[in-house]
């Protein structure tokens, strides 16, 4: 199932800085070809649902894939409905939070930002 807006299929997008950080971690893990990040949702966290990120180059048949800034963003079918329209950003600096999810589906988000409810 694809969710569209004005005829354009929505997916999970990634900012340039977040893409650079993904590449950095991918190289550290020994992956430099077809670098990708899997974005998923799991039950848990303070608000009920929590984000899960993993560096990978393994695609699943049911994945929704968007390639941006040289990084493949892979989202499984079940997580997709919670994440559609989400932008993955990176909050840098001493008090930065690291990877940050800007998720338009989240009605409530916990204090640390890693958990949400819809």
């Amino acid at each position: 199932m694809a969710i569209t807006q004005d005829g354009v299929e929505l997916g999970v997008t990634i900012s340039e800085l977040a893409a650079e950080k993904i590449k950095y971690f991918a190289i550290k893990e020994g992956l430099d070809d077809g670098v990708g990040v899997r974005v998923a949702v799991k039950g848990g966290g303070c608000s009920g649902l929590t984000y899960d990120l993993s560096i990978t180059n393994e695609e699943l048949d049911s994945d929704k894939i968007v390639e941006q800034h040289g990084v493949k963003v892979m989202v499984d079918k079940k997580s997709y409905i919670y994440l559609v329209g989400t932008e993955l950003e990176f909050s840098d600096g001493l008090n930065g939070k690291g990877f940050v999810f800007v998720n338009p589906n989240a009605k409530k988000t916990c204090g640390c930002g890693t958990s949400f409810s819809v």
Partner: protein
Amino acid sequence: MALQRTALHETAGGNMQERFGWELPATITTLSSEYSAATTGTVVHDLSYAGRLHATGADVLDLLNRLSTNKVDELESGQGAPTILTSDSGRIIDLIQVVNMGDHILLITSPGTQQTTIDWLDKYTIMEDLEVDDHTTTTVMLKLLGPGSSQWLEQNAGIGLTDLLPYGMLPAQIAKISVQVIDKPLGRKPGFAILVSNADAPALWTDMVEMGVTPIGTDAYETLRVESAVPAYGTEMGESYNPLEAGLIGSIDFAKGCYIGQEVIARLDTYQKVQKHLVTLRFSEASAPTPGLGLMSDGRVVGRVTSLGPIPKNGYVNGLGYVRKALALEGTRLEMESPGEGSAEITGFSQLFGPGV
């Protein structure tokens, strides 16, 4: 809908009444003799009406750890723990005991809440490998209680209780019948759940009674529960209450990390924002308490009665209730809201109790 019956319905007999959608014996002999045995010897109660779920799959413990208050992700075979499923506002969905049985994870729920627990787990299962089946009616679960219960098990089940970890499980045999013994205290009182197949349950029950264990019905069991300040689902637990109010702090791990409702519970604890506490109450002779009746101080309602013990102790009716924190102190006397009369004295404070403490 027809009432459910346990596999011991015919064997145990007794004065049947409806409870939790089951036809259960309120008493098997007399309430006073059953209660007396429970406070001096060893008693057995057919607790098969409490929910039992079997969870299988690689992610069971990991998911439960993310959804509930206690640390359960590293439970090995034979180990167990009580934990509370909480909503994102930190309210109680149910208190469950999680036991790693080796080939599956057993979840013991409150009576009648097994479907609530299944639905809750299902709601938060997205990619996880997890299957949950209701086994409430496929086995019998006995509850062994009383000051003699530990010794009775050591002598008759061939197990050393030092090998039975808190809330854990040991396989055993009683009268040559294979059972699984689970540590399941009632508040601070020792208690054990004994799981047995439906087929073997009548013979086991008969043998245990012949071996001197007194069978008790739901009234004596309820009396013991109320005395022990153990909250029950529907009266003291549910989405109107948080675990700190219900005295379940022993089932919360404050260092384990995130779970649903963790932020709220941590804040309530850190800033001491708990509004009310579960207390044990002793009603004056003149009072006629009923569950739901208000408890008054200076003309204001400051609490409510939630449960009543079916048998008076030393002539006084005992009960449980929630009372505002400032007044939830041992010895505080509260008046009964009209049409009740007389007063209720707070005799205990459940905050220090709870599984795990």
